[in-house]
């Protein structure tokens, strides 16, 4: 399984902190987002936000990054700490 977590304003918009999806071969970050939207159609607009960032196993990645079984995928808005 792939663990997916959401943070900050995205977490609040979705009303969900985390979920999981089945791993499969050649699954990219972009495909993970598409799969999430396919099962939660009311989230489509939220995932259109071009500013959303994605990290796999705590490293920022691009939409084409491959996601493997047991990876932790996080989606979140631009950071505002400091």
């Amino acid at each position, binding site marked *: 399984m792939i663990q997916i*977590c959401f*943070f*900050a*304003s995205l977490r*609040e918009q979705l009303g969900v902190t985390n979920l999981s999806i089945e791993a499969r071969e050649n699954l990219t970050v972009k495909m993970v987002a598409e799969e999430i939207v396919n099962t939660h159609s009311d989230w489509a607009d939220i995932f259109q936000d071009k*500013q959303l960032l994605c*990290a796999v196993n*705590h490293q*920022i990645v691009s939409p084409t990054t491959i996601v493997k079984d047991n990876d932790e995928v*996080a989606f*979140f*808005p*631009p*950071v*505002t*700490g*400091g």
Partner: protein
Amino acid sequence: MIKIQQIDFDVGVEYNKLTDANPTDGAVVFFVGLVRDFNQGHEITGMTLEHYPQMAEKQLAAIVDEAKSKWQLGRVSVIHRVGNLQVNDQIVFVGVSSQHREQAFQAASYIMDYLKTRVPIWKKETTNQGTRWVEAGIKS
């Protein structure tokens, strides 16, 4: 030393950690970020900071390592608070010791700049009109 914590920090204690038994460093630069009472057009009464724990610590450690590779540094200390804060509360401490001041100034500035753009921490402000997430890219 890197810490992400809810509790406050004591600048005097942190300064001493940078200087105690450290005869080689002739410079210490530190920065403290505070909760301001006005931001992006609204009065602020407090804020809540959310973070992504494991990633925030890894990213902070990476930024500190980068700074150490760019400049000759002695000790480096970064503390970032999370949770509920009030106006005037301390948010972040970045302290750097070095043999000479220029290295310490540059490294402290570098760490703060990258902390603000790469470490997964988010501010949610409580304003006179309710709560709102701080938007990135707007000076805060």
